[in-house]
């Protein structure tokens, strides 16, 4: 059936809340209010205050309590309202959730999901717009899920909740209202499997989250110019389906990586490094990264639009390789 990305996430939550009584949600304003972006609307009425837990504005507590609860057998899904706020509870993910299994010699596990939301383009300025997914990919022990459409959003969320590792799950503000075909009921998309969103033979464009939509638009424009672009969505950054990227590049010989975040030390750099190490002989042209400039995200719509990687920018980058 047709669902928006937000509805698909809500449906995935509902499926798991119904299936497993150990699953519960906690976060700021996720209860009767329905979440800052409406993603959890109605779940409080359906599942009640035990399963849908409103918390004070206390990010250290939200994530930290999830670590303790997960360690004691529950499967918390917690929400941090904006990705930008992850920086105030970085310790709870980076030093606690990520490390407990390892430093306790595999005798403890932390099956929790932290849901947060990325993205510029809504005039939210420098502290409510970032896409900081790369930060936690640097910390071993965490899985990173970052869906680009409603089908993936639901199927990946179900897998994330069933996974026995801590998972970061990144929604995107610009995708919440995007509709698509989503199966009813349960289905799980394996973590670590990329998806080819558009087949092509001349260039591989790797993109995730909102940038998949922009890359698909760019691919349509490129097709008119006689360039047949393949758009590959890794869907999860950790684990990364590098075999899928390598095999696509083996076919196309060209690689452009598109990320919404600023350029320096973004995940595009990691993908570029992997392909440079393991697939340099597959390339007929340099690897290019399309990314935001290394600035904070500005408020003024004119400045913000200049900040966000554009369809035109992707088209120009691809054309420069030919």
């Amino acid at each position, binding site marked *: 059936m047709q669902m928006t990305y937000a509805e698909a996430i809500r449906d995935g939550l509902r499926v798991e809340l119904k299936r497993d009584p150990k699953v519960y949600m906690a976060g700021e304003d996720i209860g009767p209010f329905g979440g800052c972006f409406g993603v959890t609307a109605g779940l409080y009425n359906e599942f009640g205050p035990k399963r849908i837990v409103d*918390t004070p504005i206390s990010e250290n*507590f939200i994530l930290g*309590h999830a670590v303790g609860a997960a*360690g*004691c057998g529950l499967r918390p899904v917690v929400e941090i309202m904006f990705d930008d706020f992850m920086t105030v509870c970085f310790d*709870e993910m980076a030093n606690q959730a990520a490390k407990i*299994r390892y430093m*306790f*010699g595999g005798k403890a596990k932390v099956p929790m999901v932290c849901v947060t939301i990325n993205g510029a383009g809504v005039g939210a300025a420098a502290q409510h717009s970032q896409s900081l997914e790369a930060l936690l990919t640097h910390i071993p022990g965490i899985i990173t899920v970052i869906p680009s459409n409603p089908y993936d959003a639901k199927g990946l969320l179900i897998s994330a909740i069933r996974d026995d590792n801590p998972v970061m799950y990144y929604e995107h503000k610009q995708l919440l209202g995007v509709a698509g075909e989503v199966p009813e009921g349960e289905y799980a998309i394996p973590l670590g499997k990329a998806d080819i969103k558009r087949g092509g033979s001349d260039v591989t464009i790797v993109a995730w989250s909102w940038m998949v939509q922009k890359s698909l638009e760019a691919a349509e424009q490129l097709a008119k110019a006689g360039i047949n672009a393949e758009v590959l969505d890794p869907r999860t950054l950790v684990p990364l389906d590098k075999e899928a990227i390598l095999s696509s590049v083996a076919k196309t010989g060209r690689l452009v990586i598109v990320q919404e975040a600023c350029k320096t030390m973004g995940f595009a750099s990691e993908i570029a490094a992997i392909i440079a190490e393991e697939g340099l002989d597959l390339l007929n042209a340099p690897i290019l990264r399309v990314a935001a400039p290394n600035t904070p995200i500005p408020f003024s719509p004119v400045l913000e639009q200049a900040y966000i990687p554009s369809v035109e920018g992707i088209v120009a980058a691809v054309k420069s390789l030919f």
Partner: protein
Amino acid sequence: MELSKEKLLDFYQTMATCRAFESRVSELFAAGKIPGFVHLSLGQEAIATGVMACVEKDDKVGLHHRSHSEMIAKGGNTNQMMAELFGKATGICKGKGGSMHLADMEMGILGANGILGAGFAIAAGAAFACRYNETNDVTLCLFGDGQSNRGPIHESFNVASLWKLPIVWICENNGFGLSNPVKGHLATDNVSDRASAYGMPGVTVDGNDVVAVYETTREAVNRARRGDGPSLLEFKTWRWHGHFEGDPGNYKDPKDQAEWLKKDPLLSLGNKLIHQKYATQADLDAMQAKSEARIDEAVKFAEESPWPDVSELYTDVYDRQL
């Protein structure tokens, strides 16, 4: 209420084992047999002993970086603990955690935490899980006076009281946050003065009096088990050694150090046992010898245990190889 002879003798045995363990670790560290950082709780044994005597195996305890004695008193396996300090494969965390990350989930020991302040929310999460699962278990969260100044304490104190979580906050005030004396880091006379801000009872008690520690904790544990919410207990004591082994503690006033050494909690309890005719000096000596023998065995076990296979570096990061 006067405690039974058996209970007091149990306390003495536990305190003697803690003393023997820590004294031996100090020697082994000086001899270069234990790598890394070790933080000893010599002089603080009455707190670990009195507190842990109030909880059962399924109750949870969250610990800090100076928690060998607490783990022993909760029923930790001294062979596996010592092997962990050596970094051996037979360690309680397979040699991956070391002194600062001792944990034993089966014993309800949620783990020592090297990040001061991170343990509050994790312990609160464990208490949340105990209630979610409709058990009658309580959680104890132990921390030091220095740690009491970390920001996350506020979030966890507030939420735990708001939700009446079955938790007891226990401050081991040993006089110093590393080199900084309490008067240099605490705005109030007592850590427990903060309790009223969170609507919970707060009390400060002599931490070198194991009976006082036990009775105070028991009341708070009963309160938590009844569903009446958290309490904040502060036990004042003195850290005999430096912050870590190798720190000579030159910042301590020698007069204070001498005064506190006279208040040796093990000696005090021994005198009490003799005075009450519950034990003779020979009985006490025999109990000390029993503790020493237990630690002899732990050291032998650790020394004879194999190092971890280097392949262990790569395991336990996730539940599977990604």
